[in-house]
């Protein structure tokens, strides 16, 4: 197997007396979709936040593309290509699709030696269209504000933005929550397409059907610890539920 793109070594994170993440080691490889499972409070989100720079781990190391990383702010992780798509999507509802794809990184035309800098709307629109096309997402009208789009379409815009900005690793937090069934399918198809383009995806979820639909491998956490790591093909819903509620634990058997 290739070298892992993300490698977490014995990572721990404590909040006062609570050990939210306890000595977790975990690898994510290029071109795979990995599900991160666990009940509420299992430590999934804390682990992810330690990877994406929201929190700093108390112990352990994170290697990204072979390099030891130490992100103090989410924006640093973003700059390295770790893109986290949260449930609230970080889109500005009042702006249109190109404006959101280029939010904070707008293209500009410079006049008078940079004295006057205007937004390059034409180029941003063209580039946004290219990015959407590469994921086969089609909007009839790019100038509509995000608030007039459906939940699945918003997910698509957030994903297209990440892909455009050269995401090397995509972390998605419950991407199918609050979506209707057809929209859930669209988002899962987009995740598959991302993998096919070589972008590994970490899927945080407790929706087991999603896991079986798109994930190549999975990791289950329970009370801050990694209790198992499996290929999706080698497990069943019943077994995963047992891991998630703590009835099974691979680490205890050893």
């Amino acid at each position: 197997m290739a070298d892992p793109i993300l490698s977490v070594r014995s990572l721990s994170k404590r909040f006062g007396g609570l050990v939210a993440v306890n000595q977790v080691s975990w690898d994510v490889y290029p071109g795979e979709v990995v599900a991160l499972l666990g009940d509420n409070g299992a430590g999934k989100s804390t682990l992810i936040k330690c990877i994406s720079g929201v929190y700093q781990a108390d112990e352990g190391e994170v290697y990204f593309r072979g390099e030891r990383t130490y992100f103090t702010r989410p924006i640093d992780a973003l700059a390295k290509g770790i893109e986290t798509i949260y449930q609230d999507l970080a889109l500005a509802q009042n702006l249109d699709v190109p404006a959101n794809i280029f939010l904070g990184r707008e293209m500009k035309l410079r006049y008078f030696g940079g004295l006057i800098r205007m937004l390059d709307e034409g180029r941003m629109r063209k580039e946004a269209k290219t990015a959407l096309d590469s994921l086969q997402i089609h909007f009839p009208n790019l100038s509509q504000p995000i608030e007039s789009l459906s939940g699945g379409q918003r997910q698509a815009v957030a994903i297209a933005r990440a892909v455009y900005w050269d995401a090397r690793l995509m972390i998605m937090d419950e991407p199918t929550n609050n979506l209707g069934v057809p929209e859930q399918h669209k988002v899962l198809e987009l995740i598959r397409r991302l993998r096919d383009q070589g972008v590994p995806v970490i899927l945080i979820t407790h929706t087991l059907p999603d896991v079986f639909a798109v994930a190549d491998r999975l990791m289950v956490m329970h009370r801050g610890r990694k209790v198992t790591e499996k290929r999706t093909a080698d497990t069943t819903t019943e077994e995963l539920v047992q891991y998630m509620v703590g009835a099974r634990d691979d680490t205890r058997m050893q």
Partner: protein
Amino acid sequence: MDRVADSDTRLAERLGGDISGARTPGQHFILTLSRLWAWVFLALLIVVFVISISMTSGGSVSFLTLRNSQNILVAITPVLLLGLGQTFVIIAAGIDLSVGWVMSLASVLSALAIRAAFNAGAPLFLSAILGFLAAVGGAAVVGLFNGAIIAKLKVPAFIVTLGSGFIVRGISLLMSENTTVIGLPPGIRDYGNNALLYYLHGEGGGFYFLDRPELTGEALRRLDPIFPWPVVITAIVVGIAIFVLRKTQFGRHTYALGGNMEAARRTGIPVDRHIIMLYILSASTAGIAGFLSTLRFTAGSAVIGDALLLQSIAAVIIGGVSLFGGAGTVIGTVIGALIIAVLTTGLVMLNVEAFWQFIVVGAVVIIAVLIDQSRDLIIGRARSS
């Protein structure tokens, strides 16, 4: 392979296909109307006043005169300038309650600076420039103070700007020693009241560009200034504001802050710095308003802007800026200010008692917000269907 390709096309259809055409013609009509209603309302107002004033006066008084249009433009200048900065701040989901008092401070500062410079031997024009710098610079300091506390210490804008407004008011009264700052060089009066163009009615009449004809007595009454300097300067500021809000990254980020502050932060927009810049901008346009009022009245007044805060917010809201942030335009604010001024002037010309102005303006503000909400309701409906 075929199966994959097929599913891709279907995905594309599903992702793209279901957003247009979700609105009925009725909803579409209301939506269009809600975008344009301020223009329509302004036009209707003018028509109503033209007809009613002409009727009540038996044709002897007309609403649509050159002089009246210029009076309206001069009247909206300070309200509009305060509203311009406010437009940016409110679009970014903030509010600046200090602008009226900042305008008063700027008026006092510019009067003191002009007087001191001129008395120290500076030429008139240089004195005026120094007055401008004192007004805008002093105002910008207040804006920096507001913005820094709002952005860095996370105190709500409402509280910070209310508090700084009181402080500024105290400082203005102290600096002016609670009286009008007078003793400015008389030439200042020309800067504040001369115009770009003049039109002389009647015999030997015509346009005079940049050059006020020397007239006396009866002829003076036939002379109409067109675009007095304060109006010209305000128009330039309006033009810059339109450009900045629509065409620059600063404007884009202003909308983004109002749309989703957290998203703005996560995408790397320097949110704190932007907030500070917004309040500096808001205070600065108030500073320009204070400077212009000093030119116009040849005096500095520590109370000149006190009553203008609420008028400027009314103009912004009538113009369609959402108090929740994220939506609004500069042109909307211009229209909002015009609606207030036309209403006020028209009612005066109809000899309606002045108190009615407040009642009518208040009603228009509430109607404006109702229309905005009906638009949101329709967009919301389209979203959920």
